């Protein structure tokens, strides 16, 4: 009974492949595939990078490292630093998905498919999914997205040299434009909006001042600031 329903919810999740969020992500992966080809990465490697890393910013860093002849240890460090955010994104997301019965191994497996798009889709829609089916629904959403984009990277790779630079530039631009609006639309409270504003301002500043730990620094400082501002605003409201 529940198993049958879980399969239904898995496929309901898989249908998110046709959501605006997923379509925009796919256009960003068209951009990535072209970047990989421009950089001289082989098609099989481009697909392996897509399915094994999945997060777009970390993929771009790996391609950059391969291109510039960076050593494995330094590459590991650079990709790690760009991926530290997942500790926060995953630990913010899974408490909303799991039940008391959900096995940790299931969550460890599913966590691989977390990236900004699946995070945003989940945060936006998870409250409409009954708690006991959320893991199945998220699995359908996120695994489908990953596999579809891996195939897409392989297909686009064959054709991407035909794109003029202005089209490539716009394709690369879709990702940040989409992240910005969808993250804002899925924000449930003011703290998240404060955090976005602080992160947008601090990201480029720390990129210049602390290039090695820019994202962690903007996340920790921006996030704690946003939380404190939200906490004080709440307190003032409850006093008045």
């Amino acid at each position, binding site marked *: 009974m529940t198993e049958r329903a879980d399969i239904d919810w898995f496929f309901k999740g898989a249908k998110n492949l046709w959501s*605006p969020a997923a379509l925009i992500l796919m256009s960003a992966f068209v*951009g990535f595939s*072209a970047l990989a080809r421009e950089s001289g990465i082989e098609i099989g*490697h481009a697909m392996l990078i897509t399915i*094994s*890393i999945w997060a777009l*910013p*970390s993929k771009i860093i790996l391609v*950059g*490292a391969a*291109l510039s*002849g960076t050593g*494995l240890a330094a*590459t*590991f460090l650079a*990709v*790690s630093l760009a*991926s530290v*955010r*997942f*500790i*926060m994104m*995953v*630990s913010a997301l*899974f408490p*909303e998905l799991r039940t008391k019965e959900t096995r940790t191994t299931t*969550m*460890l497996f599913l*966590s*691989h498919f*977390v990236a900004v798009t699946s995070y945003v889709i989940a945060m936006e829609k998870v409250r409409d999914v009954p708690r006991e089916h959320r893991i199945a629904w998220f699995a359908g959403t996120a695994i489908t997205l990953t596999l579809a984009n891996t195939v897409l990277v392989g297909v686009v790779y064959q054709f991407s040299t035909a794109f003029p630079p*202005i089209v490539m*530039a*716009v394709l*690369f631009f879709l990702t*940040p*434009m989409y*992240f*910005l*609006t969808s993250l804002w*639309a899925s*924000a449930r409270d003011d*703290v998240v909006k404060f*955090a*976005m504003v602080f*992160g*947008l301002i*601090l*990201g*480029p500043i*720390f*990129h210049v001042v602390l290039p090695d730990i*820019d*994202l962690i620094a*903007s*996340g920790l400082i*921006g*996030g*704690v600031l946003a939380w404190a501002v939200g*906490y004080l605003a709440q307190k003032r409201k409850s006093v008045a």
Partner: protein
Amino acid sequence: MSFDAIDAAWWSILFILIGGWLATDIWRWLGVLLGNRINEESQALVLVRAIATALVAGVIAKLVVFPSGSLAETHWALRVGALAFGFLAFQLAKQNVMVGVVSGALALFAAIAVF
């Protein structure tokens, strides 16, 4: 030992798996373990969500201000302007994401074509 250091298929694959897959997934796994200790209703989750959001916002700003590929050849003011334009359109359209993304992309396309 760089990506091209050893001219063999196994080395490229190992490089991607260690430098890419492992370097990314350890943080996802740690996130699961940390998430197991967080209560859904707690202030700790509000704080974690704020930090996660500020991190992603940092990624967004970096992709626009310090981009890679063909986007890097455009002037930064065009990119930031197009992002602001898209966000404004998104707000005016009652937070419709599609309207925001299409407006921002068209604005950038027009700006590159004109300047």
